């Protein structure tokens, strides 16, 4: 598969060398130096989604191994693999043979390593030690604090910044030129605001708009992103506040199932929505507190829907006599 020929823009415009990476100058400079020395330690890339962690890992691998990169690189995803044992087995199989070429180690990229439990991380630490002579790990996480100290202390940690508007602008203008799209200052602003600093989101959004019209207006972006959002959580809250728990529950399940939205995303939108509700501020504060409590229970509990129902019930209680 020739990635350069890909028509999926996130691949087509994925930076292919250190120079093309935008917005992470500090990180890029250091990683580039390490790579040049041909002897890298384990790396821990920490930062928000879509800021270039996987991209940088791929660049490192290609710089190190050149044309042989595929034989020397294992790409794993902690949230996809079923348990640490699967990860360990794959690592073992891969690390058994020596590296190709003149670099004395292979690279294992473990994406979303923070999806591993602490116990699994302990097991991972042992694996990292056992294969340290033949392998280097690059771990990618959203929050480095979710990685246990013994692993952190074995890695060189690099923190990726949220992308700024100017970084996004630079790349979007480049793509627009290549694809012959018309973009304006407003387009860039709309893309930036919709993306929340996630470059993958920017490019997917840009390509989606381009497939509808070559002239990318901020209107087009905003309507598209609005319909990308799961059905309005506001309706659910309104039902609850008006006292109709059953209706609210039914609608909530609909919203979650139709777009397979995770409970954690639902509670995020509820938390954002509360401040816009037609209720007095004191109540907003109380409901937000409750939302936080429920989000905590969601993390600790096992059934997101049951937790959200409890939240809806407190909206029902709060709404009595206030709304309608």
């Amino acid at each position: 598969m020739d990635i350069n020929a890909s028509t999926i823009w996130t691949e087509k415009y994925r930076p292919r060398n250190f120079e093309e990476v935008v917005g992470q100058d500090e990180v890029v400079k250091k990683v580039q130096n390490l790579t040049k020395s041909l002897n890298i330690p384990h790396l821990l890339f920490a930062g928000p989604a879509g800021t270039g962690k996987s991209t940088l890992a791929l660049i490192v691998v290609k710089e190190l191994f050149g044309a042989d990169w595929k034989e020397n690189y294992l790409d794993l995803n902690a949230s996809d693999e079923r348990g640490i044992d699967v990860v360990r087995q794959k690592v073992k199989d891969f690390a058994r043979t020596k590296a190709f070429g003149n670099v004395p180690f292979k690279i294992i990229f473990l994406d979303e390593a923070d999806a591993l439990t602490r116990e699994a991380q302990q097991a991972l630490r042992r694996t990292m030690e056992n294969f340290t002579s033949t392998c280097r790990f690059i771990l990618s996480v959203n929050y480095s604090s979710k990685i246990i100290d013994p692993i952190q202390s074995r890695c060189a940690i690099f923190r990726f910044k949220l992308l700024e508007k100017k970084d996004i602008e630079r790349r979007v203008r480049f793509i627009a030129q290549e694809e012959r799209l018309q973009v304006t200052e407003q387009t860039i602003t709309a893309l930036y605001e919709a993306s929340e600093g996630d470059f993958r989101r920017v490019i997917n959004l840009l390509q989606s708009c381009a497939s509808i019209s070559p002239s990318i207006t901020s209107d087009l972006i905003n309507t598209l992103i609005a319909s990308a959002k799961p059905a309005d959580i506001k309706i659910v809250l309104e039902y609850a506040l008006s006292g109709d728990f059953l209706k609210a529950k039914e609608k909530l399940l609909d919203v979650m199932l139709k777009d397979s939205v995770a409970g954690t995303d639902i509670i995020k939108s509820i938390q954002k929505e509360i401040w816009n509700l037609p209720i007095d501020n004191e109540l907003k504060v109380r409901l937000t507190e409750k939302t936080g409590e429920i989000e905590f229970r969601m993390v600790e509990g096992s059934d997101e829907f049951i937790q959200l129902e409890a939240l809806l019930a407190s909206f029902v209680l709060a709404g009595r006599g206030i709304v309608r």
Partner: protein
Amino acid sequence: MKMALSLIEKYRAKSLKDIKGQDLVIKEVEAFFKLFPKRKALILAGPVGTGKTSIAIALAKDYKMELFELNASDLRNRLKLDEILKPAIGQQSLFNKGKVILMDEADGITSTEYGGLPELIALIDKTSFPIIITANDIWQQKFSLLRKKCQIVNVRELKESVVFDILSKVLEKEKKKIRAETRELIARKARGDVRAALNDLQTALSLGEEEFIADIAEREKQESIFNAMKKVFQEAPDEKILNVYDNTQMEIDEIMLWVEENIPFVYHGKALFKAQEALSKADLFRGRIYRQQYWRFLVYQNFFLAAGISSATELKNSQFTKYSKPSRVLKIWLANQKNAKKRSIAVKYAAFTHMSKKKAMKESFFLPFIIDRKAQKLLDLTDEEKKYLKEKKKEIIEKIRV
């Protein structure tokens, strides 16, 4: 099609000696007959299917008396009682036979001024024929006056062995065979109710034994969960509340779904809030059990699910409530079927773009736009998947236009 007589009617006792396991009751009834009119009415009190009605019918036959049958649940009002009862008492029997008046299922009679209870009592004073009254629960307040006028005989549930024998005899007469274990199962399940046992036997004969057994297992499971729901939602919590789910033969996770489904139908307002809160905490402990494998937390999960839900309100509603099966799991399954194509595309996309399936699903909204023909080939999509993308794209664009 030939109308088959139900086993219950077909094998109803034709004589007192056909009645099994109620010898003492029969003795008392016969004694009452001999004493009449010293005592004018007799109440046969006991659970359903123990033979109360059969005893009355067989008695009339054995003593060659005419049976005047009254069904209180059909005849709820004074007018009809007057119409039917009074002439029966005044007239002399046609063939000089004696008469027995049977007031079946007296539980249905009302005690209000429109009802028949005062009439029944007046009737007992006036009657020149013995009256037999059957009732499930004669100790209700409304019957206090009636009880004073009548001799009461308690009819007890039949022993399992008696029910088993009855089933075996019926099968013999029907020239049909059913394994002894199945007969035992029916007898045990009937809990002394012959009518229920015969009904089940009929079902077993028409369904076939295997299917019948599966059916029973499912029914028992449902019955027991219904009882548990009733206890939790409609009765004040007592010292046994923590064991309320013990007999349900259900995993606690399934019970949680039952509770979740039914809370909003029984509780409202503050009670609803408290119950959902208790359910939320039960789930919290379940999460901790899973994560830490610390099974002692099960105690707390069960506590919130039983006592927590039950004590959400002190005002319990004793009205009959129909509890529903959990519906969420089915809805999730249906939605998953629907989302299966989206997921399979996302998985292929994820492998191609160095991302996790989870992340790919998050970007799945964009897939109909960014996977063009060329990309479809690269990702090796099936025709079904291509069709899904095409339709989805059309759907979104139409939505945007509006």
